[in-house]
């Protein structure tokens, strides 16, 4: 640490795990208390959210600078079938055997702020296995690796902006933000819109998770209605007979809104 660190900030060591869940809950409640949804709804997470200890030294302290999107920012990278493999949207068939856990289908549409489908764009997901373990060397918590599950998927949205993944419901897992910290079960999503400013990485959660109130990453979105947008909906019409339970999750990308340019 150097003299740049704010002396008033809580311990910044992400591995310190020193605070109790009760102390984190108190911090979360105090910030929520100060939030007034009527003045300016906060639909994005606060970058500076002390209950999430890793944010302390990693949030910008200066206001974002307004810029008009120029040239390359007006267009997303352009994705297509060349970017993905044929079987990458089914995370249950990437190995020789079936992964352990509850097989699920997650489907939804990617839309822009005007409700237009985001067509033919890359959607990437990654997640823990049913036991809450990532295939990642730095994830060393004592839950089993599933040799038949890597937890990585990709697809391209169709002409209606729809994506579909078949996967395994991830388990919750411990992390070192504070003592006895557990993340709600979630799937990481990476999305691109039709211009660079729409880039989004987020997490999809499952309905009714008892860990929501205890999780500083989920709670960093102060507006409860906005926060709920990260929770998928169970849908029995997506559920498949003797095969998989089904969830719907739609995603809305917004960024800058440049005047439409002449297409080359």
């Amino acid at each position, binding site marked *: *640490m150097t003299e*740049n660190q704010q002396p008033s900030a809580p311990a*910044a060591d*992400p591995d310190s795990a020193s605070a109790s869940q009760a102390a984190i809950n108190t911090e979360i409640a105090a910030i929520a208390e100060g939030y007034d949804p009527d003045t300016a709804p906060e639909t*994005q*997470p606060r*970058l500076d959210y002390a209950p*999430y200890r*890793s*944010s*302390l*030294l*990693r*949030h*910008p*302290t*200066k206001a*974002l*600078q307004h*810029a008009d*999107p120029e*040239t*390359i*920012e007006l267009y*997303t*990278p*352009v*994705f*297509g079938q*060349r*970017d993905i493999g044929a079987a990458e949207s089914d995370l249950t068939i990437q190995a020789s055997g079936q992964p352990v856990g509850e097989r699920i289908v997650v489907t939804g549409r990617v*839309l*822009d*702020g*005007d409700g237009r489908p985001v067509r033919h764009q*890359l959607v*990437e997901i*990654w997640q*823990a296995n049913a036991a809450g373990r*990532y*295939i*990642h060397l*730095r994830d060393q918590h004592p839950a089993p690796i599933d040799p038949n599950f890597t937890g*990585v998927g990709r697809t391209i949205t169709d002409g209606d902006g729809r994506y579909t993944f078949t996967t395994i419901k991830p388990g919750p897992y411990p992390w070192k933000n504070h003592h006895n910290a557990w993340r709600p079960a979630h799937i*990481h999503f990476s999305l691109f819109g039709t211009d*660079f*400013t729409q*880039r*989004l*990485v*987020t*997490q999809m959660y499952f309905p009714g998770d008892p860990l929501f109130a205890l999780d500083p*990453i*989920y709670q*960093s979105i102060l507006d409860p209605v*906005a926060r709920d*947008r990260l929770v998928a909906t169970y849908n029995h019409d997506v559920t498949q007979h003797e095969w998989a339970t089904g969830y719907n999750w739609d995603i*809305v990308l*917004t*960024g800058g809104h440049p005047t439409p340019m002449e297409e080359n």
Partner: protein
Amino acid sequence: MSKLPPTPGQTVGPFFGYALPYDGGADLVPTSHPSAIRLHGTVYDGAGDPIPDALIEIWQASENGVVPRVPGSRSRDGWTFTGFGRVAVGPDGHYSFTTVRPGPTEEGAAPFFAVTVFARGLLHRLLTRAYLPLGADAAAADPFLSSLPQDRRETLIARADEQGLVFDIHLQGDDETVFLSYGDE
């Protein structure tokens, strides 16, 4: 017009390394390309320490100032310049792309790389620009750069080294990089 509310972002977390980086993601052109340069730098936190778990993406025009619109930005066939790159920082917080200098997309425009920053501890991606080194006159003539105070402006301008360009990213602190918002997000 009824606007749909946006889906909130969340942190990329620490465990993206096996999912998002991909073979060739750091190489927009082969190192043998006659105009190949290195664009590299280090991502720092507010204590001035390098961050070992950040992911950087760039999107850029070609040397001739053409914005690539080739489907398959993520794929690498060794021939097609897609203008898109993605790379994770190493344990020392350092990232490196092999690419070419973007040309001005219109007469007099100051060329830049569009840059996206993800990291554990960063709850929503940050967007910024890495401008090519340019003289004070050129910076003053650019409508966006000239809107920034001199010391803040310099955080967006890469510096030349023997291999190409260095663009360090400071998430916080005295040298905090200027991060951007566009429109009404």
